[in-house]
């Protein structure tokens, strides 16, 4: 039985009781508890079910390495799955639910997986079983697996997280990760040099394990030394201390992410819940401590079996005794401290089994002196299955598990030795050495992660370096602090010796199986990875099936792939694999340590960037008018453009049709301000544009416009637009709305990296100008009316301003530049005014246009108008694989020019292939609208038995002017197949039949735009 002790508990405040619920039952704990310690105080041994076999699982650890005690926390907009009970601080009203069980935690149907099917669920089970027969996968296996496997349920997608998050930037000389005694000592030493120091501690308390493990530093009890050191550091201006803040990842050039949990323990406190620290540190000290390893014996996953040091933590830190009759199994001296702690708290240690033939040192003697039975060379053969520990069978370590002695117990403390937490050291390339004596991988200081100067920027301190004794830890930490400060440019300093009282410990011995020759029955119950349900037998099977690489074995067995990333399981798993392969552990090697050290919230990663501030929005000068006039906006890059202006009582579709008809019949206004506008200027500008565009731009006459195409160096069409020659050495290039920044960058790249001796400047003036397309048969009338009202202005007659020319002047009193260009096939002026006058100009046009039937139109009408004319749209007709020839735009490819971007590529064999799909118009036989993106099928099948495709739809619309569906598409040999009817199977099962036609559906001669 697990109970709260009457005394002890250095972290809890017994005067502050708090209530919380677990699976709906109200339980009591104290302020300072973790959810795990509070559950144990309430004798809640069973906290979850395992991933694959649904075995009952209890709390194993006391910190971030906990694999089992994952719960769903909170509810509704604050629900979060897979939270570790051991790192969750208790608060009043906390709601926790266990996971992975159905119908209930106590009674779980899936447990039969374990009892009946364990032998059918070996390593690689998914790969082996579910290949055939195919329909079984969809209808039997997958639904079953989805129901029975997996961790916690994902939050409801409709519920928006109620909390806020933020990012925070920090720059420091030395960053110390870990606020245990080693981290504090390293910080103290570094700070003494005047270096700016930041110390991060993931827990809510400082000092790490030292107060639990005992010992004295500089003549003070560990706890007092910690308090004194914290006070000293807190008083220094050059030191920043942050608790509840984990060092999550170490990246290139001293970039480190910190993850601060501000209000997880106080959800009503207000302010951001998590803060992501984006830190640049000149030097990083990782004082991340060490993690105790489990021992691999049968039933090592039964609730009540826990890590020895964690049991000690629960007793000393939280005043919780996880069992009344405790068996301790160990291969090292540290676990004897747990025996002492259990005894001191009034618990009974029924047996200590030490796998070492020669047993322990002074600590073991101390335990024996208390009358506790200690047996050397002994092992746990098996812990009886169940929802909690009831019986433990003991045997000789050096055997197969026979001649067992069964004893009654309700808890087991195990210790398989300690592994330094090397994750942060390894994230950015720090290498490890195998320490055979201590059976762990430790950082190799000669192969540290290196920074921009090629010099190391990470140094480990304390038990993260390998040593475990207090004296060695403190000496290592002081040296690390001094080293980091010096490497960060502070003066070197001699490190004074730090006095500690240390108990000498006997050497640990590696124990990878308990007992050493355990039979298959035992190995099938010996867990390596609790969270992913991987057993000793699974790793051995993988080895037998030929998985020699540790990276492959990891993926085949899923060892170490759970949310704890193998913090407890990796070394044991490696050892089993090495043993199975008759290899050595260093030869097998480790898997890669990747950030974050411990899962961090998606909210923290997103920070402030959500909702309205997710990304910057670009608004044209006329945006507010659009908004007030029914605009249904669509995103185009970062811009918001009106898709259509919807009037009361009509649908969006109705609005589009109305706008299309009105523009052809009367007068339409389009806000074209988003169109990219690049000024290209300089003595070599013409020569430069001749390289950028496929057609000739240098010979364009001043005052004239030309439609141009741009290809990438490998020949694909990347942008198009109208270019205007402004003066002798100035051109203005229009780009697509989405292309302005991209094309500007493209031009700059060529100018700066290839033709850097050419005298050309490129400036993006997109946002300096508001541009309005005045379109339709009445376009000229409205401009003339405005000029008349203003008492003069630019002559916009056909003669003074012919098609494909531009003029500067005044329109309606506004300083304007008018281009006679048309993307609709109608009489059209695109008029640019200063951005600050955009709204006023638009208002003037709209007022004056009323008598001419003016209506604003949106991007969908724009698309339909251009499609009726067979004009291509970058991004519809092009997708990065289309060349101008595919779109019958050969006329725009200059033959006179020796070179332009894409010219050489167009002669490559695939580009010149006559079988390339080419642009055609498509007209459905019944007048319906073709589905967008539909593929046309031809005769025969391909190698996969699928019908051969011969084309696809690139643009498809309902044309209100023609009263039918119109489309464009790319079809194999299309232009030679005019009149032919081809089939497009839709995803709805319908076969759409369409006739290949000319892509110009409206005003084929182009008379309307040229009036």
């Amino acid at each position, binding site marked *: 039985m697990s109970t709260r002790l009457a005394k002890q508990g250095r972290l809890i405040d017994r005067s502050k009781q708090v209530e919380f619920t677990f699976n709906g039952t109200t339980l009591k704990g104290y302020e300072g508890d973790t959810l795990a310690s509070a559950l144990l105080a309430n004798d809640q041994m069973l906290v979850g079910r395992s991933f694959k076999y649904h075995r009952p699982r209890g709390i194993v650890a006391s910190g971030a390495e906990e694999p089992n005690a994952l719960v769903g926390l909170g509810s509704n907009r604050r629900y979060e799955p897979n939270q570790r009970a051991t790192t969750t601080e208790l608060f009043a009203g906390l709601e926790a639910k266990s996971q992975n069980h159905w119908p209930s935690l106590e009674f779980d149907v899936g447990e039969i997986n374990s009892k009946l099917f364990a032998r059918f669920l070996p390593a690689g089970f998914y790969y082996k079983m579910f290949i055939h027969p195919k329909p079984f996968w969809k209808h039997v296996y997958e639904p079953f697996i989805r129901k029975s496997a997996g961790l916690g349920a994902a939050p409801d997608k409709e519920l928006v997280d109620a909390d806020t998050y933020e990012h925070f930037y920090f720059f420091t000389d030395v960053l110390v990760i870990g606020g245990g005694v080693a981290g504090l000592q390293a910080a103290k030493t570094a700070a003494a040099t005047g270096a700016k120091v930041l110390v991060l501690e993931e827990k809510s308390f400082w000092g790490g394990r030292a107060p639990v493990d005992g010992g004295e530093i500089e003549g003070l009890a560990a706890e007092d030394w910690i308090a004194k050191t914290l006070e000293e550091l807190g008083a220094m201006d050059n030191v920043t201390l942050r608790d509840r803040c984990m060092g999550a990842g170490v990246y290139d050039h001293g970039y480190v992410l910190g993850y601060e949990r501000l209000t997880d323990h106080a959800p009503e406190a207000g302010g951001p819940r998590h803060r992501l620290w984006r830190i640049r540190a000149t030097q990083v000290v990782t004082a991340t401590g060490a993690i105790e390893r489990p021992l691999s014996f049968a039933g090592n996953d039964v609730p009540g079996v826990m890590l020895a040091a964690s049991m000690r933590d629960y007793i000393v830190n939280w005043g919780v005794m996880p069992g009344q009759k405790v068996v301790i199994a160990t291969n090292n001296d540290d676990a004897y401290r747990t025996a002492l702690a259990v005894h001191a708290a009034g618990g009974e240690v029924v047996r200590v089994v030490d796998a070492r033939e020669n047993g322990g040192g002074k600590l073991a003697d101390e335990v024996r002196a208390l009358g506790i039975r200690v047996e050397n060379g002994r092992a746990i053969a098996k812990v009886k299955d169940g929802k909690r520990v009831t019986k433990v069978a003991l045997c000789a370590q050096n055997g197969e598990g026979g001649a067992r002695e069964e004893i009654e117990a309700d808890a087991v403390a195990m210790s398989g030795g300690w592994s330094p937490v090397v994750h942060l050291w390894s994230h950015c390339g720090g290498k490890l050495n195998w320490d055979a004596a201590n059976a762990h991988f430790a950082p190799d200081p000669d192969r540290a992660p290196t920074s*921009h100067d090629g010099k190391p920027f990470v140094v480990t301190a304390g038990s993260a370096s390998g040593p475990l004794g207090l004296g060695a830890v403190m000496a290592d930490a002081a040296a690390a602090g001094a080293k980091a400060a010096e490497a960060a440019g502070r003066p070197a300093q001699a490190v004074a010796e730090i006095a500690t009282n240390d108990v000498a410990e006997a050497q640990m011995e590696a124990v990878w199986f308990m007992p050493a020759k355990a039979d298959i029955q035992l190995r099938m119950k010996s867990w390596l990875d609790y969270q992913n349900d991987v057993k000793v037998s699974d790793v051995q099977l993988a080895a037998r099936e030929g998985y020699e690489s540790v990276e492959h074995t990891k993926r085949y067995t899923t060892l170490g792939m759970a949310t704890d990333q193998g913090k407890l399981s990796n070394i044991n798993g490696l050892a089993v694999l090495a043993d199975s392969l008759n290899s050595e552990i260093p030869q097998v090697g480790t898997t890669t340590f990747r950030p974050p050290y411990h899962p961090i919230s998606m909210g923290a990663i997103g920070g402030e960037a959500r909702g309205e501030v997710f990304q910057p929005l670009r608004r044209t000068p006329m945006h507010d008018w659009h908004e007030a006039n029914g605009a249904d906006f669509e995103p185009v890059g970062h811009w918001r453009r009106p898709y259509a202006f919807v009037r009361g009582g009509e649908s969006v579709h109705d609005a589009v049709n109305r706008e299309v008809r009105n523009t052809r019949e009367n007068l339409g206004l389009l806000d074209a301000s988003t169109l990219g506008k690049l000024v290209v200027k300089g003595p070599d500008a013409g020569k430069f544009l001749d390289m950028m565009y496929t057609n000739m731009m240098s010979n364009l006459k001043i005052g004239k416009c030309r439609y141009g195409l741009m290809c990438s160096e490998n020949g694909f069409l990347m942008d198009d637009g109208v270019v205007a020659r402004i003066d002798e050495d100035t051109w203005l290039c229009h780009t697509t709305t989405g292309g302005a920044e991209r094309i500007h960058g493209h031009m700059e*790249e060529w100018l*700066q990296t290839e033709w850097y001796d050419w005298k050309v400047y490129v400036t993006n003036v997109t946002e300096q100008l508001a541009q309005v397309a005045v379109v339709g048969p009445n376009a000229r009338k409205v401009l003339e009316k405005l000029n008349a009202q203003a008492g003069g202005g630019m002559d916009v007659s056909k003669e003074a301003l012919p098609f494909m020319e531009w003029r500067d002047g005044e329109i309606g009193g506004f300083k304007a530049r008018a281009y006679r260009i048309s993307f609709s096939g109608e009489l059209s002026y695109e008029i640019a005014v200063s951005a600050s006058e955009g709204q006023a100009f638009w208002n003037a046009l709209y007022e004056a246009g009323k008598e001419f039937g003016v209506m604003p139109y949106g991007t969908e009408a724009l698309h339909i108008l251009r499609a009726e004319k067979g004009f291509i749209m970058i991004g519809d007709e092009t997708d990065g694989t289309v060349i101008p020839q595919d779109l019958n735009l050969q006329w725009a490819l200059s033959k006179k020019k020796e*070179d332009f971007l894409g010219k*050489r590529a167009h002669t490559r064999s695939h580009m010149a292939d006559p079988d390339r799909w080419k642009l055609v118009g498509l007209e459905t036989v019944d007048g319906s609208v073709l589905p967008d993106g539909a593929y046309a099928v031809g005769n025969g099948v391909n190698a996969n038995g699928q019908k051969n495709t011969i084309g696809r739809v690139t643009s498809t619309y309902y044309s209100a002017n023609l009263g039918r569906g119109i489309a464009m598409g790319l079809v194999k040999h299309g232009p030679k197949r005019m009149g032919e009817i081809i089939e497009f199977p839709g995803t709805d099962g319908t076969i759409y039949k369409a006739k290949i036609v000319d892509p110009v559906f409206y005003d084929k001669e182009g008379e309307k735009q040229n009036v």
Partner: protein
Amino acid sequence: MLMLHCPFCDEYVEETELQAGGEAHLKRFGPGSSDDEFHDYLFTRENPKGVHFELWRHINGCGKWFIAARCTVTLEVFGTYPANCTEPPQWIKDKISEKRPGWTWREFAG
């Protein structure tokens, strides 16, 4: 996340301010080049384990392109310089040779 020195701004800037542009010092092949030459120019890139030259643009800054000489293994940066040259300046070559004895330009070793 790398930090590189922008030779135009004379500042160390974070990767979030930069745009990567791939291998630097490519020789352009245009009309008249052989299929092999053009293919190599378009598609064949060095992928060295060691010294490398990369184009970077200070896109969220001055907008200028520069070249970074760095080691892809250790993340050491030997230096950055404006992109207006066809091969690395001598001072960069000297610095790399000093740090990576035996290294020579265009052999992508070391």
